[in-house]
């Protein structure tokens, strides 16, 4: 009886579900991080900040139906904000990361407002200019942004109550995972609210949505700002993990890779963003290991990872046209039908 009451409360309350999800995630991530060495903890941290960016991007692309080739540029805004505030102004970590979210969201306002008036290739082009142009600003104003070498900060120090032997890499993984869980919390709530439905309605049919009383341009701008905030947090976390912000960390390829991540993981789904982040972190090192296991000439060995990477992406999209999460969902549906069939036979 009590269990029933609990599940009804869960069904009724978005907050209980999202908090439960975050708590479960925190426990799992803490346990995983406990079992990992320094290098793998850095990979975990990388995956976590990728998730923050991908989750925002998948809401923008998959839910609100817009596109951005500029999220690498928005990550750069977050990274430089954190590095400047921590390095020059001696801000603490949390306010600096919060500032990264705010600054990047503010940058997202004009971009998002412009984006809501553009469609398809024009939108892609406009945001592309952002990805190309923004990191170049660092070269233009070397006195402020440190030019090509960028700016560095000191590594974050684990709080003393965690013990003197607490590894820096594990602490960085914890910070990045905390950021990822905040993004998960906010976006989960959004997608399960009327605003999430409004975004999907706008994506499906702008005219019908406006006749239902939805302000189409405003909804699209809002999605862009939220997504920019997530990218800013991801970029800020990247800067904390690498203790560095350079223009070279945010090339155009990064923006394209992020899009690859959301499509491969499964558009519009937060679980898909987790898959996407895992792929972005693990696939390059796996293809690298694989390429180097053949003992080929250096020339081939250095280029083979890219070829394998491309092949894996093509293969994955052929097998799972709606992304990994789409494939998982399909598999789940098949298992359920199978079980229902068995029960029916009995």
């Amino acid at each position: 009886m009590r269990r029933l009451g609990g599940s009804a409360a869960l069904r009724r309350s978005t907050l209980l579900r999202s908090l439960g999800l975050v708590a479960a995630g925190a426990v799992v991530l803490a346990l995983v991080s406990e079992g990992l060495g320094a290098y793998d903890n850095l990979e975990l941290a990388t995956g976590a900040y990728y998730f923050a960016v991908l989750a925002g991007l998948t809401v923008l692309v998959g839910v609100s139906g817009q596109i951005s080739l500029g999220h690498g540029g928005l990550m750069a805004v977050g990274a430089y904000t954190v590095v400047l505030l921590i390095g020059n102004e001696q801000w603490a970590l949390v306010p600096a990361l919060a500032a990264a979210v705010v600054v990047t969201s503010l940058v997202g306002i004009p971009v998002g407002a412009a984006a809501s008036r553009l469609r398809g290739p024009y939108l892609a082009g406009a945001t592309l200019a952002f990805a190309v142009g923004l990191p170049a600003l660092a070269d233009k104003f070397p006195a402020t942004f440190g030019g090509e070498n960028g700016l560095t900060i000191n590594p974050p120090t684990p709080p003393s109550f965690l013990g003197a032997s607490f590894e820096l890499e594990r602490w960085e993984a914890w910070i990045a995972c905390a950021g990822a869980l905040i993004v998960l919390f906010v976006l989960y709530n959004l997608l399960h609210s009327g605003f999430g439905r409004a975004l999907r309605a706008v994506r499906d049919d702008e005219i019908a949505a406006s006749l239902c009383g939805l302000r189409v341009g405003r909804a699209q701008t809002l999605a862009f700002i939220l997504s920019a905030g997530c990218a800013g947090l991801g970029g800020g976390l990247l800067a904390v993990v690498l203790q560095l912000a350079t223009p070279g960390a945010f090339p155009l390829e990064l923006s394209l890779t992020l899009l690859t991540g959301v499509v491969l993981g499964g558009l519009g789904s937060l679980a898909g963003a987790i898959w996407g982040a895992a792929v972005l972190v693990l696939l390059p090192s796996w293809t690298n290991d694989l390429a180097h296991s053949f003992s080929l000439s250096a020339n081939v060995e250095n280029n083979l990872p890219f070829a394998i990477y491309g092949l894996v992406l093509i293969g994955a999209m052929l097998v799972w046209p709606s992304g990994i999460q789409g494939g998982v969902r399909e598999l789940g549906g098949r298992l359920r039908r199978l079980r229902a069939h068995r029960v029916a036979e009995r």
Partner: protein
Amino acid sequence: MEPRELARGTGLSVHEITVSFAGITALEHVSVDVAPGEVLGVIGPNGAGKTTLFNVICGFVAPQSGALRWRGEPLGRIRPDRLAALRIARTLQGVGLFPHLTVLENVTVGATRFRRAGLGSALLGLPRSDRDERALRERARAALAQLGCENIDERLPGTLPYAVQKRVALARALVCEPELLLLDEPAGGLDARELSDLAKLVASLGSSVAVMLVEHHMDFVTSVCDRVVVLDFGRVIADDVPRAIQQDPHVLEAYLGRDADTGDGLGAEARATDARG
């Protein structure tokens, strides 16, 4: 025909609207009005300006001249997303549902004007946002039940028969409790029984709702409309009760004039439309 005067402060009044696109006049000094409880049909040959008239009322097309009044207030520059709050709802030609939203979600979107919780409470998942959601879904369920669409809440529109999709679309328009309902070809693609169901439904909307419908199906128009306005080349050529419209020489000419061999006037247009649908 008798000149009609709307009681002050009620209904929609379209006054002397002119619209032209790149030199082609789509509507020329068009005046139409519709009172609460009245069902007005707008008919005319293809390209006569029927949909343009709807688009002017909805704010998708800005007229070069003329004025609109709604419930006695002038409608200035109309924004489509403000209509629901003004209690004006419109269905689209065909179905126009959101293909990737479930039936219940589709109709819940139509109830947007009743939303009270803000973005902040949505992002934080506060109970206020959940309560709001439940209230909107209740309204949507009630609208679906009113149209006899039960037990399809979780279906996607594409998996339903066409006639049921059209009902869901109508539920999405009705859920905002409109006082003016604009129906763009509501009868398109429906069979005889579905048409009589739709006619009953339109008749049951009550005395507070003004209905304006664009339709090719003459039998349907004759059976549900209290009054019919005929457009031809962007001008109103007749405005009268359906029985009189069928005898009106100008109307017969508009329909027959261009291809007099093909049949018996209004019926021919209706048949041509059915064949296309």
